[in-house]
């Protein structure tokens, strides 16, 4: 950390490496989409997307070099998204499981 500013200066080499990784992952996600993996297709696609997003957040958005408080805010954003998604889908998926009483 430099003394005159709070920002960590990431090397251009690292930026280029992250860019290359994002491009390779894009090629992978497109290639995998044309292979039949059954329901795994969606999970692979989401796995690659999460990996790409993590790279962008950690390096392009400098979160790797940010304060704990920033980490907390970033994590809380995704945590509440996970709650919204998980609870909604828990309802939607389980609706038909018990049947309707009296019918």
């Amino acid at each position, binding site marked *: 950390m430099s003394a005159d500013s709070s920002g960590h200066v990431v090397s251009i080499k690292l930026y280029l490496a992250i860019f290359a990784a994002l491009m390779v992952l894009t090629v992978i996600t497109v290639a995998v989409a044309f292979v039949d993996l059954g329901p795994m297709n969606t999970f692979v696609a989401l796995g690659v997307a999460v990996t790409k997003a993590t790279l962008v957040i950690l390096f392009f958005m400098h979160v790797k070099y940010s304060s704990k408080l920033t980490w907390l805010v970033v994590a809380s954003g995704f945590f509440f998204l996970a709650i919204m998604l998980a609870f909604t889908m828990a309802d*939607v998926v389980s609706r038909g499981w018990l049947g309707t009483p009296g019918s």
Partner: protein
Amino acid sequence: MSDHATTHAYAHQFDSAEHQHSASQLGMWVFIAQEILFFGGLFVAYAVYRYAYPTAFAQGSHHLDVTLGCFNTAVLIGSSLTMALAVHGAQLGQRWTQVIFLVLTIVLGSIFLGVKAIEYGHKFHEHLVPGPGFVFDGDANHAQIFFSLYFVMTGLHALHMVIGIAVLAVLVWQAWRGAYGPSYYSPVELTGLYWHFVDIVWIFLFPLLYLIGRH
């Protein structure tokens, strides 16, 4: 006001310029956390309806152009790189590096929007816009849900890019005037955070909209 290029006094509520910088960064992240949930609602709607109508979603996805989507993904990731390099230039006080990379980011963002406009045009010609004129060979009713989500999600994403490009244009002007350097570059960094967030939204939209049921 922080318009003065050389002296960067910090506002009285902060201990130091560094304190001010980290506070502005945190504020931007709070905004982005809100944006995650703002887009998140649409992603949840997508999950609910795709779970309910997987076939219609796969059929609808087949009508999207993978080549253009792929091209746009590359363009947007490229714009994230140029944005990161612009922030890098600002951190090191390199005036022309900032200006050039900010302009490149605007150019790449505009290419993305141009391609998106062409894609929207195709959808109108192919009667794939939800409404009375919707024509679809397959599960038309539920395919309309897919295309509604397609237009709202990509439209909201494009709106974010239009706003981003407008902010970048102001930054180009300010950077050209030499407003940003190692001791003060918060506006460049915060705009970078916003731009990268918009990139992340597309990273999820691309496989979820363009790549389902391709095999």
